[in-house]
Every structure is written in structure tokens, then in C-alpha cells.
């Protein structure tokens, strides 16, 4: 077999899979734009002219941004701690990887059990007399963000950790031997070098948060619709596929508008930060 033919045969299975995906993507965009065979932005006009949809879009972006922020604030120190942990690091990794691999349904459901009116927290509060009535810990933004942050935190930690573990510990020592105090060393050495991981983490968390359905449905209330849950609703209850397609396209565009620049920045940084392999 000639080399090009051999390559073609090897690529065929994955190319079919990706072809199906790309074909679907084109159909998605097409069906939201073509009405009776003609280009028509009616669906988008309808979506963007409705104040509640615009508000929902805003809520989606805000929730995703908040979730990303929480993940970053919690994930970075955790990654640092794990990366520099001298003891049994595998155990710590297990505490991160295992929850990550458990279904999001189970994890979100776990939060229902914890945050619910007779859940762990409220039981503790009422039992200890700290609160007379159960607090409303879910069916609101708090519940959604907490749930999403929990579900997505491992992505952030893993992304940062995989970069941090490659930063030789030596670099921090080098900085210190040159007189860099811990804060200075962190700012000038560790932080810039772990930036690619941070950006990857932000990308993943943000994407997953904007497109989430399960967690917002389980932990959010009637007032917490997001693009994902609205799409789900549109498909499951109104069967309005073109409208769902338009909403999905809006979701894609807004997500990629945030994510692609970050990706480009990340690649650029990664190239700058790599040693070029020189010994």
C-alpha cells in the first residue's frame, strides 16, 4: 500500500466520526438560518429582541464567569499545594480525579441532598438551633454556582496541576538564591509559568458552565434558566428544533467568542514559555 493510501485508511474511522460531528454543526447553523430554503435571521431577531432572552443570555454568561472565578480562586491554591506536596501525592490526586470521573448527575444530586431543606446543612442548622427555618440554599444562583463550581473544579485543578508539575522546583529555588522573596518569586516565576494551565482551566470551566443543563436544572430554580436549560426546554417541550438550533448557535458563538481568544493567547504563551527543548 502506498503511503498516502495507508494514511487515508488509518484516518478513515476517526474522520467519519469527526465528519458526522462537523456535518451536524453545519446543519445546526444552517437550520437556524434557513427558513424555507432562504437565508433568514428571524430566529435570531426573535431571540435578541426579547428582553427575557437577553437577560437569560446575560445570566448564562454571568453564571459561567462566576463559576470560572470560583474555580480559579479555589483551584489554583489547590493545584499549587498538590504540585508541591512532598508526601503521598497520589492520594491527593485521587481526591481530585475520582470525583471528576463520577457522573455529574450523581454529584449534582449529592448537592440536592446536602443543600435541600432537610439536607445536611439545614439539618445541622436546625438541630443546633442556629436557624429556625431551613435556609434556602438552592433553587437560586448560589446553588447553581456552587454545584457548577464543584462539578467543574477538577477540570481547573487538573489543567493547572499538569502545567505546574512540569515547572522544575529548581526555578523557585533559583529565584530565592537570587534574592527573590517568596512573594516576589511567586509573582515573577511561578505565576507566569503556570499561566498556560490557568488559561486552559478557564477555557474548559467556562465552556462547560455555559453549556450546562443538568446542574442548573437540579440546583437552579424557576428563575435560573440558562441558555442550556432553555435549549433543553425548547427541544423537550416545544420541539422547536430551529429555535433550539438558533439558541445553540448563540451559545456557541458567545462561548467561542470568549474561549478562542484565550486559546490563542494560551498557545502563544505556551510557545513563549517552552524552553524549546534545548538542554
Amino acid at each position: 500500500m502506498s503511503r498516502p493510501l495507508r494514511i487515508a485508511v488509518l484516518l478513515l474511522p476517526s474522520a467519519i466520526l469527526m465528519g458526522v460531528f462537523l456535518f451536524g454543526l453545519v446543519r445546526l447553523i444552517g437550520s437556524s438560518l434557513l427558513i424555507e430554503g432562504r437565508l433568514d435571521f428571524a430566529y435570531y431577531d426573535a431571540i435578541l429582541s426579547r428582553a427575557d432572552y437577553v437577560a437569560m443570555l446575560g445570566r448564562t454568561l454571568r453564571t459561567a464567569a462566576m463559576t470560572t472565578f470560583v474555580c480559579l480562586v479555589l483551584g489554583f491554591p489547590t493545584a499549587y499545594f498538590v504540585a508541591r506536596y512532598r508526601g503521598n501525592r497520589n492520594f491527593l490526586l485521587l481526591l481530585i480525579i475520582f470525583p471528576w470521573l463520577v457522573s455529574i448527575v450523581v454529584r449534582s444530586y449529592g448537592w440536592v441532598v446536602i443543600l435541600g431543606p432537610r439536607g445536611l446543612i439545614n439539618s445541622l442548622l436546625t438541630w443546633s438551633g442556629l436557624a429556625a427555618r431551613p435556609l434556602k440554599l438552592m433553587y437560586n444562583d448560589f446553588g447553581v454556582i456552587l454545584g457548577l463550581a464543584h462539578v467543574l473544579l477538577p477540570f481547573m485543578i487538573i489543567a493547572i496541576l499538569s502545567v505546574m508539575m512540569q515547572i522544575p522546583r529548581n526555578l523557585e529555588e533559583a529565584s530565592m538564591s537570587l534574592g527573590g522573596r517568596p512573594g516576589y518569586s511567586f509573582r515573577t516565576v511561578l505565576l507566569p509559568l503556570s499561566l498556560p494551565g490557568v488559561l486552559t482551566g478557564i477555557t474548559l470551566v467556562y465552556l462547560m458552565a455555559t453549556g450546562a443543563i443538568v446542574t442548573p436544572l437540579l440546583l437552579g430554580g424557576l428563575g435560573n434558566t440558562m441558555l442550556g436549560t432553555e435549549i433543553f426546554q425548547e427541544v423537550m417541550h416545544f420541539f422547536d428544533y430551529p429555535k433550539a438550533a438558533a439558541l445553540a448557535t448563540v451559545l456557541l458563538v458567545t462561548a467561542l467568542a470568549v474561549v478562542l481568544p484565550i486559546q490563542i493567547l494560551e498557545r502563544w504563551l505556551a510557545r513563549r514559555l517552552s524552553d524549546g527543548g534545548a538542554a
Partner: protein
Amino acid sequence: MPQTATMPQPILQIDTVTKVFDGATAVDRVTLDVAEGEFVTLLGPSGCGKSTLLRMMAGFETPTSGRILMRGRDMSKDAAYEREIGLVFQNLALFPHMNVYDNVAFGLRARKRTEGLDRKVRDILALVGLDGFEKRRTGQISGGQRQRVALARSLVTSPDVLLLDEPLSALDLKLRRQLQVELKRIQKETGITFIFVTHDQEEALSMSDRIAVMNAGRVEQFSTAVETYHHPRTRFVAQFVGETNLFEARAIRRDGDSVSLSVAGVDLPMTVAVTPGAGVRAGDAVWVAVRPEYITIGRAAGPALRARVASHSFSGATVTYALDSAAGHLLAQVPFRPGQGHPFPHGEEVRVGWAEENVTVIPD
């Protein structure tokens, strides 16, 4: 070359320092005084504790016991960033996200000594021969150049002492030789005290004022390069520093600083000088070390031993013969003269000797 005897106030004193990791002793009661401007090398096999000792000086490890003094002041408790000690890492640890200039400027900025920073950075880059490379990324320069950046980075803050942990071991032979020369030159020009770690004895011999030979956490000998090579005080030092032939012998008689020996196995009496302090007495079992290049073959100069040529190996200027003798396996390195062929073919019986002044006696 500073002489041990006339040494002024040492810049750095390692005072009975011990470091224990999880019950394993990495550094064992090491005491060293380093004079200002000196080039001291820590030489020893892998795992003997060189890096650990260095890291204690740098402030990355705390001694389990003992003190480290800088100009007489105990700095054992100081953080790494408070010490005026530079460190060049084996893997260099250049900051990959900075260019050459920023790498070199790092220490000045970290210490907020930004006055005249540009001048200092450029001067030091010129010193290591890297002018014009300021804007290069560390990935865009060669291994030898990276090495120089690491050096410049540590030198620019004019540390009191510069520690170098096997800085050349990742380089290939040619480049290594070249950088050895350069390192030595820079040390002379800056006058900074260097403490250099290596496990390469040739490197140690050619660069150092004094060498501390380490073994299993201890310093076995701390002396000048010549002394270390020609008067090893322990079997370990004799064998680790250069090739050597070592036989068991017995002291027959001691006369002041010289002792008469009989090499075990064959009766081969000789009288050689010993280190004044060495506690060798008549009847003691001792070890006798002779370097291969001081072994003569064929002519029976001085006491002579019968041997058979087992093999030879050519290395350009010299031929090394492997010989089987009654005193054991011997190596003899003799100059090779082209056109004369190998004077001693394989299997030939020869007579082996050495001048008495080339023999070192090591107490058992």
C-alpha cells in the same frame, strides 16, 4: 594559590555539619574552611552528599547539626534569599519565560538594586561572552551559551560565594573543556569565591585550588589538587582520583618520615617517604599506591616485579598495558612512539618497576 597555612579569616566556614534525611545520613560531620577568592571543589561519587552540602550553604536545607558561618557570622537560620550566595544549578534552572537579559537582571531586580542595572547586566554579559544575545530566549541559544547565562545570572549580584552544582556535566566533552577554561578565567577576573561540585576528577584537578574529596557523606581529604593526586591519604581518594595501582604491603621499619616496605606476596623491599603525621609503625599492614604513568616496564629500575602482558590499549600519545603480576592486576601507561610499534606484545613476560619517590603509602 592560597596556602592552607597562611589562610586569612575564612569567608565561609562549615563547622561539623551533619544532615540526616529520614534516618539516612547524607552529610556526616563535615568541616571545611574556604578562603576568600578561593576555588574549592567538592569531588565525589554520586550520592556522596555533595549537593546536599551545597544546598545547606545556599539555604535550601537546614543542617541537622553543626553551623555554617559566613565571614564568622552563623547564617544557619537565614532564608535562602537573605544570603549573599549565588547558586548555579546542574540543570541551570534558567527562567524559560524570560529572555537572556531578564534572566540576568533577575537578581538585581529581586534585590531592588536597580541602580545602574543596565550597565551591570551588559558588563556581565560581556564578561561571559554573550554581548548581543540580550533579547534571545533561553530556548534559542546553545547549551554552552545557556551555561554562560546561568553563570552571568548568578554573578551579576556579586555574591560573596558562588556555588556551582555540576554545572558542566550535561555538556559534551569538547564544550566542557572549553567552559572549564572560561569558568576559571571568570573566577580569577571577578575574584569571587567558587565552590564547585563535580564527580569528574579531571575537571577537579584542572580547575581547583583545593579539592574536598567526599565519600559517603564525609570529607576524606581536603587539599590542593597536586597534593590530592600525588599524596592521597586514603584508599578511596587514591582510587577515585585518577587511575591507580594499589597493593597491600607491610611496613618493615620506620625511620623518621620514611618507611621500609615489603610488598605482600612478593618480597620487594623499598624505602619510601610517608606523610609526617601518618601513624605507620613497623609491622603495620599498609597500602601502596603507584600511578600507572609511573610504572616502568622492561628495565628493572629500583625494585622489580615479574609480570605478563594481558592486553594493551592505544590512546594516541600513550599505550596502556594491562599486566598480570604476583602483586595482582596492574596498569602501566607508557608513552607511545610512532614507528616503534608496541614494544611488548601480548603474553610477553616483562619486568615492572617504579621509582620510590612515586610511591604513596596509605595506612590501612
